[in-house]
Every structure is written in C-alpha cells, then in structure tokens.
C-alpha cells in the first residue's frame, strides 16, 4: 500500500534535544520569575475596584462640560480625589474612578452626582460600586480558589500518573501563573475578577499541555521499569513526537482568542490578552520546566527505577 502524504509543519523525524539544553531555559525562567515577583512588590498590581472597593462610572453629559467642572461637581459629591478621564474629545463623555471610603455604598457617588447636576442633564450608562469589605473578601476567596485548584490538580496527577510527575506539573503551573501575573504588572492592566478567571483558565490549559506529554511518556514506558538515562531519552522523544500537536493546539487556541482581543473591549479584552500570553508560556513551560523537572526529581531520589501506572 502506498504511504499517504500529509500536510504538516513539523517533520516526523524531528529530533531536537530539548532536555539537553534545559539548564539554560530553567535559569531564564528563574530570572523571569524573580523579576515578576520583584515587580509585584515594587510596582504592584493595578488592582481594580473589584478588589480595592470604589466607584467606576461612565457619565455622559447632555451639554459639553469641561473636566474641571466635572471635578468641581465630584468634590461637591464628596469625592475630590476621583480621577476624571475624558472618553471623547468634545467634553461629553467621562470615565470617573473613585476610591471608596465606606463599606456601605448606599447613597453612592452616581446618586449624588445626579442630584447635584440634575438627573435630566446627564446620563450614567455604566456604574460599578464595590464596598472595600466585599473587595477584601473577594481577594481572599480568589487566593483560595487558586490554591484549591492547584491542590486538586496535583492530587489528580499523583493518582493518574506518579507522585514523581506531580512536582514537575506543579512547578510548570506555578511558573505560568507567576509569569502571567507578572504580565499584568508589567502591562499595568487592571487586575480584577476577570484576571482571576484568566489565571484559572491558564492553569487548566497549562496542566492540559503538560498532561499530553506526560501521557506520551506513560504510554512509551508502558508500565515497565526504566533507568534514569533512558527516562531522559524517552521524555525527549515524547516532546518531539507531540511537537506538532503542541504547535497546532496552541496555535489554534491562540488564533481563536485573537478576535476577542480585537473586537471586545474592557475586561474581556484584557482577559484574552492574558490568555494569549498564558497559552504561549504554558507550551514553553511544559517542554522546559515540567519535563526536565521529572527527570531531576528522579535523579534526586537516586538511581531508582521509574514505574508509571498504566493508563
């Protein structure tokens, strides 16, 4: 029978030595992680009002109103420090952001502004008011959500593969999450509840990516006992075989996120930009963090044998 030819980007016989050069990339990643964490503490996140509490509102004036006049009205309403950003060039639309000082947002800034200016002279199409207490609770539950999902994922990998595989997957996962958080810090994008959703989705993707290669290794070892040297070769071979899939999946997912990054605005746009970054970092970390780490864990434990569970 004649062999079928396929349209493909990565040739079948590709055999790049990924594992051999892993040290350089681990150092690179370590540097990036240190830089991200340093920036988190020096520059800090641009937390959205979801976490800090405060008011964000869009105000459309029926008549042109100068920014100074808007500021004057806001200080009458008890928010002299509010930021006023013009959204058009003709002094009609403004985005107003104010930190909140009280847990209770009852008679909130938009209500006061309507009263001061006159409800018929302006239109407030969008309002977000969050009390600082709710914001604090939310921050805490976001941290918990991240913690629990990482824990669950680790347990799952331990059950389905081998305990020795779990540190690699976790290291790769943490790597991706820290770098994406760093991405938020560097770009100054608002870190709000949607950002947490992005982080959790990236966590899912990152682990999925790692699992595909782990699955290959598992199949290739097939429940047999192998030594460290052959484990390294096997892992490298697995990466090469799945390279085409890694490229395609990451490529398509990235491509399908791009329209969102272009057509949507606001939080969803930020979400998709973070996703794009996360997908790239996730693919990288599988190859250069998760896979080598498995071998290192094995080396640390001495010349033992690896026995993975059967799929």
């Amino acid at each position: 029978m004649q062999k079928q030819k396929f349209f493909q980007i990565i040739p079948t016989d590709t055999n790049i030595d990924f594992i051999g050069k892993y040290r350089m990339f681990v150092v690179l990643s370590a540097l990036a992680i240190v830089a991200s964490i340093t920036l988190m503490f020096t520059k800090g996140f641009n937390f959205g009002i979801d976490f800090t509490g405060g008011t964000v509102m869009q105000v459309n004036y029926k008549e042109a109103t100068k920014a100074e006049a808007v500021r004057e009205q806001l200080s009458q309403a008890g928010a002299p420090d509010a930021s006023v950003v013009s959204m058009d060039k003709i002094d009609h639309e403004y985005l107003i952001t104010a930190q909140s000082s009280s847990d209770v947002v009852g008679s909130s800034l938009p209500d006061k502004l309507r009263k001061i200016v006159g409800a018929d002279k302006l239109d407030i199409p969008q309002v977000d008011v969050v009390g600082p207490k709710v914001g604090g609770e939310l921050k805490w539950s976001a941290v918990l959500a991240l913690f629990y999902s990482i824990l669950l994922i680790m347990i799952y990998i331990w059950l389905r593969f081998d305990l020795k595989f779990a540190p690699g997957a976790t290291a790769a996962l943490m790597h991706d999450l820290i770098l994406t958080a760093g991405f938020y810090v560097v770009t100054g994008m608002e870190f709000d509840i949607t950002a947490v959703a992005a982080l959790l989705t990236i966590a899912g993707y990152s682990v999925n990516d790692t699992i595909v290669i782990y699955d290959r290794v598992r199949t290739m070892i097939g429940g047999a006992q192998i030594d460290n040297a052959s484990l390294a070769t096997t892992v490298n071979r697995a990466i090469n075989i799945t390279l085409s899939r890694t490229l395609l999946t990451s490529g398509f997912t990235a491509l399908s996120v791009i329209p969102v990054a272009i057509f949507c605005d606001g939080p969803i746009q930020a979400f998709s930009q973070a996703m794009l970054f996360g997908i790239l970092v996730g693919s990288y970390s599988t190859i250069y963090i998760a896979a080598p780490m498995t071998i290192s864990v094995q080396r640390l434990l001495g010349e033992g044998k690896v026995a993975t569970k059967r799929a």
Partner: protein
Amino acid sequence: MKGLNWRVTTVIVSVLFCVYLLTPSILKFGFGKTVPRVTKPGDPWYFHVLPSEVLTLGLDLQGGLHLVLGIDFSEVQRDAVTKLKNQLQEVAEREKQTDYKFEVNSKDEIVVQYPSGSGGKVSDLVVKFFPDILEFRNQTESQALIAIHPNHENEVRKRAIDQSLETLRNRIDEFGIAEANISPQGTDKIQVQFPGVQDPTRIKDIIARTAKLSFQIVRSGSEVPDGPPRADELRSWVKDYEEKTGNKIDGKLPFSTYLRELNKFVATKIPEGTEILFHREVNVNTRQTEYIPYVLQREALVTGEDLQDAYYSYDPDNNKPIVNFQLTPVGADKFDKATGANVGQAMAIVLDNNVHSAPRITQRIGGGRAVIKLGEDGSRSTEELQNEAKDTSLVLRSGALPARLLFLEERLIGPSLGMDAIISGTKSLIYGLLIVLVGMGIYYRASGLVATLALTLNAIIVLACMAAFEATLTLPGLAGLTLTLGMAVDANVLIFEHMREELRKGKGVVHAISEGYKQAFSAILDGNLTTIFAGLVLLGFGYGPIRGFAVTMLIGLVASMYTAVFVTRVVFDYFVVAREKTSLSL
C-alpha cells in the same frame, strides 16, 4: 460495525433535541415572540409543542441593575437580645421573682441583678426555659451576665436573611418589576438583579427602607417644649455629643449608628426608658435639612407588626398625598386603650427612626386608623410627594425588614452597552470558529472539517443546555465558551496526530481510525478532567461573573468530550469504516 446504527441515531436525536430546545430562544431574540408557560387555545400550534425555557442573558448583555446587599447584623442582634430580655423578664415574673432587674448592656448582654443568694434560681430559669438560646457569661453574688447562645445567634442571622428576602420579594412584586431576581448569596448576603432598569435611585430607596413603624409618646420636643428635658437643653446635649465624638448627623456614619451612640451618650441625662429621635425637615427658604430632636417613650404604643394595611390617598383639606393605615383588630384595641390612657399627650408617628409627625391626642382613638401627612414643609414637588406616598404605603404594606440593609455592591449597565457587548461577543465567537475552520481544513482537509462541524455542534449543545436549565449567558460565559472550543480542537488534533502516526507506519485506514481514538483518549480525558476540576473550584468560588464563566466552561467541557470524541468517531465510522474506504482525507 458494532452498534453503528444505534450511534448514528443518538447523534441525530441529540442534534434535533438541541435545535428543539433552542427554538424558543431563537423565536424570542430573532422574532420577539415568547413561548408562554401556560398555553391558551388560540395560540399558534408551535406554542403547544415548544418548551418555554429560553436562554437568559446576563445583565452585562441586556443591561440592568445588579445589587449585593448585606444586613446590619448588629441591629438584628440587639433586637433579638432585647426580645429575649423581655421574655426572660416575663418568665421570671410568672415564677414570682419580681425583685429581679433586667437590662441590656452595650455589649448586647442581658444583665440580671438579683438579691444575693438567689443566683441559683436565675440559672434554673435559663436552663429550663432557654436551653441553647441563652448562655451565662459571668455570674457573681448578685448579678449575672447572660449572652445569646452561638447556635441561636446563627439561627437569628439566618432568619434575618430569610425575612429580608421575603420582604424584598414582596416589595419588588408590588412595585411591579417583572423578571427581577432576588436570591441569597453565600450565607450573609442578598443579590438583587433588575434587568433593563435605567434609573436606580427610586428602586434603591425602596430597598433601603427598613419600614419600621411605631407610635410613641412624646416626653419632650417642639410639641412639649418644657420637657423634661427642656428643648434647649436637648439641643445643647446633641451639640455636645457631636463635638465630643466628631460624629455628624448627616456624615459618613449610618444614621442608626449615630442614634445608638447618641443615646448611649445621653443615657444618664434623659429620663429612664426614653430615647432621642429626630424629625427631619427641609427649610423652605434655605433648602437646608434641619433635624429637630425629640425625647420619646421607648416602649411603643403600637408597632408596624399590628398593621393590617397601608394605602395612599389625598388629604381632603389641601389635596396633598397622605398615607393611611389600618391596624389589625388586636392592634386597634391596643391603640384604643393606649390613646385613652394618654389623652392630652403628644404621640409621635415614627417611621424608620424619623419622627414624621407628633400630633396631640385630643381624645380616645378607636377603629385603628391613622394617617401620615407628607411634605408639610412644601419643599418638594407634587410628583415627588406622590411617589413618596406610594412608596411609603408600599413598604409598610409589604412588611418591615428585620434590620437596615447595606449596599455592598452596585453595578449598572446601560442597555446600549449590553447590545454592543452582544455584537462584539458574537462576532469574536464567529471569527474564532472561522479561523479554526480554515486552519483545520488546510491542515487536516476533510477530517479537519469534520472536527469543525463537531465544534459548531459543541457550541449549539452548550447554548441548548443553558436554555433548558435557564442558566444565564454572560460575557465571561461567552469567553468560557471560546475556551472550551479550544479544548475541543485539542482533542481532535490529538486524535488526528495519532491516526497519522498509524498511517505512517503503513497501517490500514480502519486500523488507524480505531487506534487514533484509542491512543488519544487517555490524554483527552486527563486534560478535560483537570480543567473540569479548575471549573468546579471556580463554581464553588461563588461570585457572579466567575460563576457564569465556570458554568459555560463546565457544560462546554462535557459537551466537547461528546462532540470531539463520540460524534466525530460516528462520522468516520459511517463515511469511512462502514464503506470500507481505503483512503482517508487527513
């Protein structure tokens, strides 16, 4: 092929069923027709056949007002302790222990003072009549500190939330906002959503009102200027309090807290069993709000609990809106006796800590009717007064809230912004699908198109499930959908790569197909399951937009396992394996 017919039938039936579930939503959003829950004989035939459940759009897509409310638990707690103190006192009196003294201290504890040596009897009473409700904090020879039991405290809080939910539902029903959604969020918050609402001020006002009504005897105030205490003394104490504590009556502090602190401050100066409240009035000339202090007997003659009905009408004298009450027979009887006993005194009508008016009782009032006059200061327009009369009678009729509700979160999305979001969301979804279609078509040819078909079916299944469960589709939900589609693509890529591997080894098409699915399955399952775990954690996270994202993602992941693995396999088996083709477009 084993069970091929059965599998083909499953796929066709599931597709048809999804289309069936989605039709009402298409009718609604495309043609503006809603399938009614109960059909009438005159309806078109398809109304009888189709389900009435439609896809609900989140507030971020259709616009509206979203509120998260908390409740002032300190007030709830204080009310509960005061009630328990009264019950304890009654029990003690019934047991002939009249020389005990009961009061509630500032830490919400009941202080019982008794002749030395009778402490044992107090503990007996509490153990016998209030097990798991009260507990001892501290006991000495002649005094006991009793606090509310933690279990009962939780019960009280739960009841406060339940009662608030009930009251809010009544109020919003009466106000006539269709499709409002009022639900508990966690254990201590209430979420309220109003689709399509533009001006939140009036709704927020209706929600915020506690609607606590009481009739109390006036001991001092503008109608009783000589007190005791005298009106000028009273004013100077209030001023003193504001200067010493820095609290202001219309400052940052909630009004009820301001009042509580003030009454603590003047507790030794005003007569026992009384409290200070204010009458709010807008000065016609200066347009400034003035607060006039009153000293009132704390024990009410009658409260809102004795109210049977409240409605608004117009004062025959000046044609201004007024609110009328009708008390229950029991309430009317109480009112009759109390007014008879207090002829010549002034009686304050207090609504939500505001002294509305304080008329003098000229004679015994039978029949249980009373009236609140609004806008005697003339500073507001007739329309404003009319709305206030309507709203006041509404909140009185629908019952009081157990305590003040606190606005913790307020989000308002204009309908046009929602429309923009729908358009951009749909656009990006369609472009995303198109990109995958073209890409997969080029790379995997006909097989790639099969995968894209499965993707489209995946999206349809997710939407159909959401319509059937009446789940809410939000903007983050659309993002979640896009992401599931990514996972589905991955599943097919994995399968196809394995198939190619087998074909490269020179294996036959039939073998390659079955091996491709077999080998790829473990990776697909593990990948999906881990993402499902992340989704479940998100769901447990329990916050609006994140929940929307998690729900779509979870439904999508399960659906993608079905479409990307089961449905595509059926297509391959039907068109390739069953027809014994020797080549595969891959």
